[in-house]
């Protein structure tokens, strides 16, 4: 009060500078490497595993679901797709053999993506498999198929094979071999040197397939552009790696990271949108307001494979009310908890447990597994690395030896190039350079 002759300092002083700094920091982050390599890997593994298990489980029912003589017949599907222009290779011909080939192709693509072998290519093949089957018979799907559908598209744009992948392992092995031979301990140099004959063979095969599909007029303009672009990018990537490993390569690498980071943002926001809308729709319903909503699905015949369990739970009024309210609260609140790491992690555990219970109680195992895979994008790096380490130690009878994935820095596959100097975000405290909403994906 005595200092009323000196002006009160403006709370906005330094705002411009702070903003500048934030923008610079943001730019450095999105160009500085692939954000959240472990989270993108767990999403890749989660969704490819879910779809693989689904395809194997439905193997005896595959003809009824997607075959040319399915109740949703080839003609019906053709008619519907003619109107909405959905992508599916299954409608290229109504031959039974083609259907079997596509189903097997979808299984193989899932295994490729799961293992992270030629991850970039695998992600495109996986998307083709998912879209072809789901768009062939949309009326056989549910919410679980919907999430897989979206993530199959988004994953194509991520560098999801940087860790926990065969690509990664092979790159490490090649680097070790190179170090033994020529003393070049540089992981990056070692992978850059390879001509990659298998890659060239695959690229040629897909080029021929793509050309055939294009000439036969099977692809819409948009999809043709997308697939040809992917095919060309693979060639450019290979050529630059071989011919111009200097700056052109660095620029390509940075651009790939930028695309990855954009796709991760889309995945994170998509998961938030799923929870928000599910929560907001529920709030509008009377049964969710008076706390009885859970009671009804537990009495729906289609969703109670274990009636005794369902009816016991439905008979407990307190449990029904708590779970009904809890579900809405968690779904509506989740996106906002991303600003606080601790609260976010608590809610994440709650959601994963709820989905695990849904798998059993409502008989929706693949929906639940897909949602858990989506939730996993928000798991902390420290937890993921620790869990993988535990898992690997258990799998290896010898134990002892620390898991390779944990300590190798800077990850990539033969198609993705390795930058050993770049540090994969370590387990530990939150990276201060990354603000929400990515915080959730990174920390």
């Amino acid at each position, binding site marked *: 009060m005595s200092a009323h002759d000196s002006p009160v300092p403006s709370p906005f002083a330094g705002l411009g500078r702070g903003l500048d*700094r934030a923008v610079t920091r943001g730019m450095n982050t999105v*160009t*500085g*490497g692939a954000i959240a390599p472990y989270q993108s890997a767990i999403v890749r593994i989660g969704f490819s595993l879910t779809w693989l298990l689904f395809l194997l*489980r439905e193997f005896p*029912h595959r003809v*009824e*679901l997607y075959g040319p003589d399915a*109740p*949703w*017949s080839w003609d*019906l599907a053709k*008619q519907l797709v003619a109107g*909405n222009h*959905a992508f599916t290779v299954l409608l290229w011909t109504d031959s039974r053999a083609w259907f079997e080939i596509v189903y097997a192709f979808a299984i193989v693509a899932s295994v490729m993506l799961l293992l992270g072998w030629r991850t970039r290519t695998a992600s495109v093949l996986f998307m083709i498999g998912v*879209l072809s089957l789901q768009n062939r018979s*949309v*009326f*056989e799907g549910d919410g679980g198929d919907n999430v897989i559908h*979206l993530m199959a*598209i988004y994953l194509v744009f991520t560098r999801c094979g940087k860790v926990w992948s065969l690509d990664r392992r092979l790159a490490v092995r090649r680097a070790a071999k190179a170090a033994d031979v020529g003393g070049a301990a540089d992981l990056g140099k070692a992978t850059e040197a390879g001509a990659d004959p298998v890659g060239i063979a695959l690229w040629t095969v897909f080029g021929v397939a793509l050309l055939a599909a294009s000439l036969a007029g099977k692809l819409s303009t948009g999809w043709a552009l997308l697939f040809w672009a992917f095919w060309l990018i693979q060639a450019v990537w290979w050529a630059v790696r071989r011919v111009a490993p200097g*700056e052109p390569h*660095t*620029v390509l690498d*940075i*651009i790939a990271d*930028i*695309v990855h980071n*954009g*796709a991760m943002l*889309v995945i994170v926001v998509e998961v938030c*949108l*799923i929870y928000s809308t*599910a929560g*907001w*729709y529920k709030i*509008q*319903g*009377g049964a*969710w307001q*008076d706390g*009885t*909503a*859970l*009671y*009804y*699905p537990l009495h*729906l*015949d*289609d969703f109670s*494979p*274990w*009636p005794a369990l369902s009816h016991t739970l439905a008979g407990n*009024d307190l449990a*029904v009310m708590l779970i009904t309210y809890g579900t809405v609260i968690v779904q509506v609140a989740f996106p906002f908890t991303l600003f606080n790491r601790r609260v976010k992690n608590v809610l994440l555990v709650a959601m994963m447990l709820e989905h695990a219970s849904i798998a*059993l109680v409502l*008989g929706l*195992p693949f929906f639940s597994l897909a949602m858990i895979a989506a939730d996993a994008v928000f798991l902390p790096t420290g937890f993921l690395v620790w869990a993988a380490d535990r898992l690997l130690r258990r799998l290896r009878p010898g134990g002892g030896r620390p898991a390779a994935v944990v300590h190798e820095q800077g990850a990539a596959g033969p198609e993705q190039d390795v930058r050993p*100097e770049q540090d994969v975000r370590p387990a530990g405290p939150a990276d201060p*350079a990354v603000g929400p909403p990515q915080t959730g994906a990174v920390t």
Partner: protein
Amino acid sequence: MEPFEGPPPRTAALSTPGRIAVAVAIGTVAVGALFHLGMVFLHVAPSNTLSKEHTQAVSDYVYPEFEQNWKLFAPEPLQQNIHVQARAEVRGTDGNLSTTGWVDLTGQDIDAMRHNPFPSHTQQNELRRAWSFYTDTHDDKEQPNSGDRSDMSRTYLQRIVRERFGPRLNGGDVVRVQARSATTPIPQPSWGGTRQPAPGTVYRELPWWPVNAAPAAQENAS
């Protein structure tokens, strides 16, 4: 705050063309990601001034590949069990026609799902979604009200019913089939009975469908 921690940014060492390429990439990805998320948001958000103005553009973008369907059990969980049932008219070897009793097709699916931790989509989704597709595209007098989609939904339901019965039944040929729904409200919870008391099972009977006339051929002709 002091200068940034960690190594200098990767872009620092780039030439001008390199930096331009990176800047263009950032701009393109940012615009693309925000456009995509904006469209998806407008699609899931309640109808508002912006989404009303651009309804067509939003659904053109979102359908078919970015569909968002997160309304399971919302806003109201389904409060009734809908069973699709069907019966068939069979011509025996003696040439006489006989009609079977109603067969609970949904009930058969439920039996198959019972105590099965991995129910198949063919049991859990097929009839359920086919029936709701049919009722969404037909009025309560069974008249089509959605053009081609009505025809598709009717053909689909017919094919499911015919497939479940097969071409031969009780030693005779299936001549025609008929479907109905049996809707039974779930009894109100004893502790939260704020809504109407449940009436009994309500049936919705569809017309008889001949089996021999191939619906696919009809469709192409129409």
